[in-house]
């Protein structure tokens, strides 16, 4: 299968309905060949990802930094512990731009840190950048261990 025909699989986990809608709209307007799956809670997300029946994992997961989990203590940590999910990029987005938060999120295993923009056009631009660079890592066999991108 050639690159341009291969679909990008994306998951978004965000408990805010408005944010999910905005995200979906931004992704749609980018006009890329994308499959978007959304989750409202961290528990639903992790139940899905940890399901052994799932064959097609997302290329990238967008996760709200403050995503609420009951069953699991810390979404990011739980995901990074699983060998099966090693190749999946994790993009954390947050309203915080504090260097300390960015730092800790990366050390916790995120690949991408997005400071949530208020402007829709800026969000689109950021998402385009993120998806582009993630696609390069995915299709060119680059090491995910040192894949860090902050925008």
């Amino acid at each position, binding site marked *: 299968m050639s*690159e341009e025909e291969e679909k990008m699989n994306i998951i978004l986990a965000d408990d805010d309905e408005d944010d999910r809608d905005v995200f979906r709209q931004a992704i749609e307007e980018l006009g890329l060949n994308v499959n978007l799956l959304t989750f409202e809670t961290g528990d639903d997300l992790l139940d899905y990802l940890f399901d052994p029946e799932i064959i097609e994992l997302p290329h990238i997961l967008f996760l709200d930094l403050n995503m609420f989990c009951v069953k699991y203590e810390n979404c990011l940590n739980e995901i990074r512990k699983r060998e099966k999910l090693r190749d999946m990029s994790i993009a954390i987005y947050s309203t915080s731009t504090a260097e300390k938060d960015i730092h800790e999120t*990366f050390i916790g295993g995120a690949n991408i840190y997005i400071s949530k923009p208020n402007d829709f056009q800026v969000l689109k631009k950021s998402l385009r950048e993120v998806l*582009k660079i993630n*696609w390069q890592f995915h299709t060119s066999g680059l090491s995910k261990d040192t894949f860090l991108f902050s925008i």
Partner: protein
Amino acid sequence: MKIYIKYDINVACRTILQEQLEKLGIHFDMNESGEIQVLEVISLEDNIQLQANLKRYGIDILSDQKSQLIQRIKNVIMDMIGREKLPASKISLYLAEKMNMNYSYISTLFSEYTHSSIENYIILQKIEKAKKLLLQELSLTEISYILNYSSVAHLSGQFKKTTGLSPSVFKKIIDGRKRKIYTT
């Protein structure tokens, strides 16, 4: 004199494909829907020949040759950046020579099929190498020499633009991750 014919386009097509593939000695399987599974790697020459032969019958090989070409471009770039020291010649000239193709053709094709321009791809690969060297404790001065950056500032700037992080912050994060793995 007029003759009347009746034909089955599927049979015609399959026969042409079969004959052309056999002519080049390519082993293949064809299923009912006309999908062809080639049982070996076709050389680039054979591929171009096959494409040209089929073209006469109005048959096109879909994108596959292009994806192969993209892969070759990527390989040349990776090979170039994987060396101990990058070649001093201009990258566009180097690529055109290695691929034996016009650079603007290569560059257009690349942008069309990969979500990235060739220039951005090269920068990305160079920064990937810079990361490796950084983690091997090389200094930014040494790294900019190896990767042909005119100055440390140029390297740092491109690093920051590509990753959103400065080289020193990047290194701190990776070191922080290692410590975390050791202590948990």
